[in-house]
């Protein structure tokens, strides 16, 4: 089945035809439908893990209640409550999210997401302080590049109340741009070539049935 689907997509790219393109769209939609069912598996796993913790009264089971309650609240707000108007059967098949769902998204998920990732600023800085040591030339290159990139994105003239001009504040963003566009790009492009060749090789192995680890066993 994987062979047929894979070969169809490859052939369709090299021999484009209106029927083939339509088929490609259809198959991509099919994959999204199957992906929705795969999400059920993931959610069931989340539910089972937390439900077992609650049932067995394992340590910190109360937080599992919080997780499941938050999940239930969001699903209720988005699917069952919806717009809050009309009969339940109608709300269940309404595509537009209601205001309560959006309110929860904007006031709970967005700030939690941003704060959680902003917290990493402290931990990355602390880890860098503990591990970055200019032991050799390579380490010095890494540190210098990182420092220039960080300083290049900071308006230093405003920070030190300096007039804008030809001092380091004006030059730093230019140096930042040059490093990003040339030496850093060269290193990344070298990695990218390897990734691309690896992805093509793995895709071919999957289509030809040589690689079957994703099927388990």
């Amino acid at each position, binding site marked *: *089945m*994987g*062979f*047929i*689907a894979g*070969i169809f*997509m*490859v052939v369709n790219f090299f021999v484009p035809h209106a029927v083939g393109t339509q088929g490609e769209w259809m198959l991509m*939609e*099919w*994959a999204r*439908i*199957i992906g*929705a069912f795969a999400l059920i598996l993931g959610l069931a796993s989340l539910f089972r893990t937390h439900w077992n913790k609650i049932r067995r009264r394992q340590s910190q089971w109360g*937080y599992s209640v919080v*997780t*499941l*309650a*938050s*999940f*239930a609240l969001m699903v209720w707000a*988005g*699917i069952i409550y919806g*717009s809050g108007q009309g009969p339940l059967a109608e709300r269940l*098949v309404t595509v537009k*999210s209601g205001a*309560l769902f959006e309110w929860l998204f904007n*006031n*709970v*998920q967005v700030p*939690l*997401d*941003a704060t*959680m*990732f902003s*917290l990493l600023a402290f931990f990355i800085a602390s880890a*860098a302080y503990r591990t970055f040591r200019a032991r050799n030339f390579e380490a010095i*290159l890494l540190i*210098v*590049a990182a420092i220039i*990139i*960080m300083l290049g994105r900071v308006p230093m003239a405003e920070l030190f109340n300096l007039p804008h001009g030809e001092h380091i504040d004006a030059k730093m963003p230019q140096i930042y741009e040059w*490093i*990003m566009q*040339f030496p*850093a790009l*060269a*290193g990344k*492009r070298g*990695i*990218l070539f390897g*990734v*691309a060749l690896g*992805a*093509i090789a793995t*895709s*071919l192995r*999957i289509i030809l049935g040589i690689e079957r680890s*994703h*099927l388990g066993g």
Partner: protein
Amino acid sequence: MPEAQQGTELVFLGLTFNPEVLGLWLQAVLTFAIFSFLWGDNRVYKFAEHVFVGISAGYGAVIVWQQAVLLLLVFKLWPQLSAKADVTADHWVIIPGILGLLMLTRFMPKYDWLSRYPIAFTVGLYAGTGIPRIVPAYLLRQMGATMKPLVPGADVGWWVAVSSLVVLVGVICTLTYFYFSRPHEGALGVSSKIGIWFLMVAFGAGFGNTVMARISLLIGRVEFLLYDWLPVWWPGAGL
């Protein structure tokens, strides 16, 4: 909570709330709860962390329900359920519907081998989609962008030529570092050594950008607390 929908005041347990103000307070409390981790792992942080997991999973479920299950499956099988008049029936979607159901046989150990069909279909499909797209985007265009004019002339300034040479040398040297079929000695050793230098600059740049992205998020949260939430809590703060 219809009141919240209309943006009017919400009465709960005898207390009157404005949904916007309530939202600001909720954001502030959750922000402080997450930041409390800097002091050490604690119950408040754990509570917020688990709320985040639950809300995110719920959000994903709702979006998939609306965008995939309803639009791509349910409305195509039963167009009369859709509010839009132009939805047409497409009974072919019963095939991915059945394949999706086969995915759920993972719950039944006796029949879980059936779940291999939808997995094989999806993985094979994306593998087939990937090859023709990777070759032009990640190989051919990248190679073209690497081979820019190296001789200064009327159209190419000397600094542009030097920069293009840096890219060409950098890419070749980085690739030789990943060439493991021969020992890295002699010219190959020198080339791979220079390749490591370019990799170090790339990693340093990646690290610097990651830190600054996190710092931007941090600035965003601090700005929220100072300019959005604090004036609500302390109107005379004047920030």
